[in-house]
């Protein structure tokens, strides 16, 4: 009897010791895939090349507020929600006047406030107009000629664009022709007409 007890005790001690080691080993096994797996290759980083660097334009808010105060009334369509004060876009909001958008033209105007500025889109019968304003500005490549005139017109594949700077911010008015055929969109808006629209933009919001 005593012999059996001693034998069983020895056997139990043996099993306990082994199971403890198996536990350690299984922990080791669970860690081993991470140890044995080849590490994920780092994503390839292209070689350094000269790049355009962004900066934030300094906005002349005082001039914008003065202009806004002298503007007779709001020009923003009812569908727009332009915030005021510190919640306003980080550039003065310029919008076109006298734009009539109908449902048949493609819906109501849209206004999108962005971290760097805003977008305002006006669907039209012959062309859509989008006004973009931003305070993000990039340096150009060296040797790319003199700066542009106050208003710069350029034809595009699907319309035209007018670019200018005001209050320190960069603005662009895009004209996107509708129903164009042959890919030559510039036929829907003449340069003079596009410049007129851009010159008639009115300030509708400021910080």
């Amino acid at each position, binding site marked *: 009897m005593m*012999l059996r007890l*001693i*034998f069983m*005790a*020895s056997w139990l*001690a*043996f099993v306990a*010791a082994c199971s403890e*080691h198996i536990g350690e*080993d299984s922990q*080791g*096994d669970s860690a*081993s895939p991470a*140890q044995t797996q080849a590490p994920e290759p780092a994503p*390839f*980083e*292209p070689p350094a*090349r000269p*790049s*355009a660097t*962004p900066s934030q334009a300094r906005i002349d808010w005082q001039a914008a507020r003065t202009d806004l105060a002298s503007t007779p009334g709001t020009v923003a369509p009812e569908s727009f929600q332009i915030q005021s004060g510190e919640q306003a876009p980080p550039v003065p909001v310029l919008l076109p006047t006298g734009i009539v958008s109908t449902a048949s033209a493609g819906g109501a105007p849209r206004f*999108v406030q962005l*971290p*760097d500025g805003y*977008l305002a*889109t006006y669907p039209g019968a012959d062309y*859509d107009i*989008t006004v*973009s304003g*931003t305070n*993000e*500005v*990039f*340096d*150009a*490549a060296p*040797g*790319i*000629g003199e*700066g*542009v005139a106050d208003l*710069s017109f*350029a*034809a*595009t*594949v*699907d319309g035209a*664009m007018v*670019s200018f700077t005001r209050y320190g911010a*960069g*603005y*662009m008015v*895009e004209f*996107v022709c509708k129903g164009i*055929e*042959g*890919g*030559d*969109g*510039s036929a829907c808006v003449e340069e003079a007409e596009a410049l007129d629209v851009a010159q008639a933009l009115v300030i509708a919001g400021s910080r």
Partner: protein
Amino acid sequence: MTLKTVLVALAGCILLSACDAVRYPGDGGEPPRTPETRDPDAPPPPPPTEPVTDPYGTGEDPSSAPGSEDIDPTPISDPVTDMPGSTIDPQPAEPAPEPEPAEYAFSYFAPGALTPGSGTGAPNQLVHAPGITFPIRTAPTYLQTQVWALGGRILGGDECDPSNYTYPWRDNFCETRTSNRNTPFCPLGKVHLGQDLRVGTPSECEVLRRTPEEDRTLHEVVAVEDGVVYEIATFTVKLRSGGRIYRYMHLNMEALQVDAGDTVQAGDVLGYVSKDFGGAPTTFHLHFEIIQNTEEHGWVHVPPYLSLVEAYERREGGPGELIDTAVATASAPVFPPEGMEIIE
């Protein structure tokens, strides 16, 4: 009985020790530890004794024993004790492994090196949009002229020709056009304001050709940056991201995956490569433009070529090989026939 008890206990102890020592090389576990047998409070072992000149009492100097001339007198270096500052000269350091030669993912001609005869490229280009996602999600892509390639208006031929689906890439920003489109980044006026990307393989080109227009969804076009899709025109999708605007053209406008006003993340699918062009003929390709608010010129079209090179390198996980233009462009210039309109 007592003897048996002792024997059984002994057997148990042997089993326990055997279990403790069951290991095999590379089993992933900790190596077996040999318990420290020395009492930590015990005095350290005595230092090694001085060498004995005549250990065997023979009266001979062991250094003159036969065979001793074979012993190298150079001190044996001990990697543990040969530390910097040691008086013993260290082993010569292993030379650093040579970096493996770069495996090029693709090749490209220099920015501004247009197809000969197709125009004058933009010099001194920058990466205007560093870090963008490549606009084609996965398919192989070839930046090249569409007008001056096979299937284009100048050369004629078949756009699905395998020769159109080869590297190196070619810049085609500033390529000659008859429409009055300009940017200060091009030395001449009447130019192409974007970069054309041919996508996929010749056989996929054939498949696309046989597929109804509205069902052409082989090659995904993705947002290159986080931003807002602010306009969807007849054949153009426009994405605003900070002071940049990206214009995508000739997608399958019947199968767009976004609406105007959608906010997208870089890599989100916008649509699929096709040849929608408001009814005008063109090839299967993506026309890609970058308009950027620049300090000197306001919002203006900038060359996308190097930004796309960099984005493709990142997508493919390897560098592009810059091809020496002076060597590689020994082909005769091809000018557009007089009176031909090139509006694309």
